[in-house]
């Protein structure tokens, strides 16, 4: 596949992600931060996000697995996840976290467990999408092309 084609595919794919709400404008900000001095910035940040989120999700699972759930702790973790996902631009994860926090306030164990599942689900989805997207970018760069800037009109 030639570079132009790859670029078009990337653009379309990215647009889809935005349309479907997986990503929001914050992700664009990240992309704009990337420049020749930091060509891997997005990749690094996203990897960092993945590592951090997985830790948080593990902690959440453990916390909710306790006989006496410490909702304060759970809330703190969710808050953290909300912060990092919003900084990355992972919109659906962020929204799931917001719902999660509401149920934490109510101290509703069943609801929070469901929320956890929801958050995990969204997280894995966006992880998948981002990995695909970054792979596309890598291919373009490897083929000598440049990553097109997406103007979503945000």
């Amino acid at each position, binding site marked *: 596949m030639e570079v132009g084609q790859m670029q078009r595919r990337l653009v379309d794919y990215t647009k889809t992600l935005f349309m479907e709400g997986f990503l929001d404008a*914050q992700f664009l900000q990240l992309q*704009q*931060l990337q420049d020749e001095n930091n060509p891997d910035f997005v990749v690094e*940040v996203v990897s960092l996000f993945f590592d951090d989120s997985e830790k948080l999700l593990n902690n959440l699972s453990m916390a909710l697995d306790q006989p006496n759930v410490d909702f304060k702790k759970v809330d*703190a973790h969710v808050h*953290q996840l909300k912060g*990092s996902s*919003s*900084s990355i631009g992972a919109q659906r994860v962020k929204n799931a976290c917001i719902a999660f926090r509401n149920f934490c306030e109510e101290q509703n164990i069943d609801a929070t467990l469901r929320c956890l599942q929801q958050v995990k689900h969204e997280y894995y989805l966006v992880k998948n999408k981002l990995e695909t997207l970054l792979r596309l970018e890598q291919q373009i760069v490897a083929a000598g092309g440049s990553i097109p800037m997406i103007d979503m009109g945000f």
Partner: protein
Amino acid sequence: MNLSSGRGSMSITSSSAAWKPADVVTDQFPAGLRVLVVDDDPTCLMILEKMLRTCLYEVTKCNQAETALSILREHKNGFDIVISDVHMPDMDGFKLLEHIGLEMDLPVIMMSADDGKHVVMKGVTHGACDYLIKPVRIEALKNIWQHVVRKRKNEWKDFEQSGSVDEGDQQPKQSEDADYSSSANEGNWRGSKKRKDDEEETDERDDTSTLKRARVVWSVELHQQFVVAVNQLGIDKAVPKKILELMNVPGLTRENVASHLQKYRLYLRRLSGVSQHQSNLNPPFISPQDATFGPLSSLNGLDLQALAATGQLPSQNLARLQAAGLVRQTAKSSIPMTLVDQRNILSFENPKLRFGEGQLQHMNNKQQINLLHGIPTNMEPKQLASFQHTAQSIGNMNMQVASHGAQNNQNNSLVVQMRQPQSRGQILGDSTVSHTPRHPSSMVQPILSNGMAANVASRNGIPENIRAPGYNLVSQASSMLNFPMNHASELPGNSFPLGSTPSGFASKGAFQEDVSLEIKGSGGLMPGYDIFNDLNQHKPQNWELPNVGLTFDAPQHSSSLQGSPDLMQSVLAQQGFSSSQMNGHNRSAAVVSEAIPVNLFPDYFEQVLTSALLKQQEGTAPTENEFDFVRTTVLFMIAVSDVHVHCKRKIFRTIKSAGTRISCFFQKPVVCFVVFLSNLP
């Protein structure tokens, strides 16, 4: 200076040669702005760092609040602004905010994914200069330099205001990014005003091309000179120029004095304003406010224990205090301050505790102010109320003390000590809690007050005119703190023009204010320090606080004491005054311990304690001390609540039985510090 950078012009006009806010604006400004960003979320941290770098700022990042603090401490003047997350595992972001405000007086921006109104409001009340909602966009970061400039501008403007603290300069800062609910700056001025009090100034005039401002180190002596000068002129008439002339310190500029004066006024104002609820930011300058002594009350027991626990208060001291029975261990603790807070508040940097260094570090001043800052935020409304009570009682006590003290010419020394440079020197000179120098007329308290009074007095500005420490208190709950100050003025050694009668109980009004100021400031820091005023020891004239250093003993050099010494000092100072007055005739000057919110007068406290310790060590506390000391110990009891009243009575009984003359019994709850001047080794 040219206002460069395409970021917009700074409408700062500088007419004098003084440092102007515009000075910091160089051609590259705001490029090179030194930012410290703190966030435990690695993703956010990385993104922020990148964004800030893109804005051409110099970024340092760290993921722990404690690390951030140590970085800031290590590199004083190494940063221009701090951005911190609210929720962090090792320390609450607001706590960090307070620390920074107290110690470094840098503008701090809070940020969080939490955009709830109460959280944002918390940022405002804690003095954050802005609040950003995550995810943070780069546009929001592009303008953070305005906080740095604004802060400096206001300080500069204050230089020019000779007579009043100009608080109208601060305009609410509107975040350019409408997406983010940045809090307006209304709360900022308050925080920054308070923070200004803590600023330290160094001697060099910094290069105008940097963002640093000229700083003068306000040493203890310098500050005392300042306070003396202000007192001579009268707090209302004290203009920087005249103060400068009176002080006659080579190398000191009018701007230095002006900025220090501003801080001092703010400090005083805060003292008077703390009594009012936090929401009330503009208390009358010297208006006796209902001191929020709540925290103070709890100081006694709580603080002692807490302090002891934290190691700040040497256990032996605590034991001593307890043994003396004068210390109420029951912590009625409404003290909002947690140990951490206390420590923070009390802690002056290590240097402060090092009396041997001979001077209160500039930090002292800062600390003092800082403490003040921090305290109000910690105080709960109800505590404030209790404060008021305690303040009242203190006031009462002071009155009584004062009355006694009147008899003793030495009383003046109470206050005097503070002012006396020599005593100061002595006190400070000792590396350890060394003995407070015995000045013939030096009252023990003064010693403490040396540091404290000076600090306190100078801080409050009002105290200058404090005559009767006690009296003021009576009228003002808060006067407690002022108490010492008043005394200070009385002390012969004091050059305070206050001229209040040596027995100085005349100036009730002043006192009150002082106390209230002090008390307010402390916001309940009143540590349970019992400052032992070594009143009785030695000669009637030696109102030394043998044991001022209760807290000082151990920690003198340790930072752990940081907080305590200050408190002690202030307490001592206050106490000292009152006690000296009281015992004027009574050789055994009772130690008047005022529950001086340490916060209020870190410096004072330290000095006071120092002096007390010094005295102690000097051996001025002869054997007779023990007994005398007990006798001379004036116990101020502050009853914050009914319970306290009981304790108060109990203490009174105890004191009485010990042979001490108790001239007054305050009905109203007053924060009371029991300062024991003990010569106990």
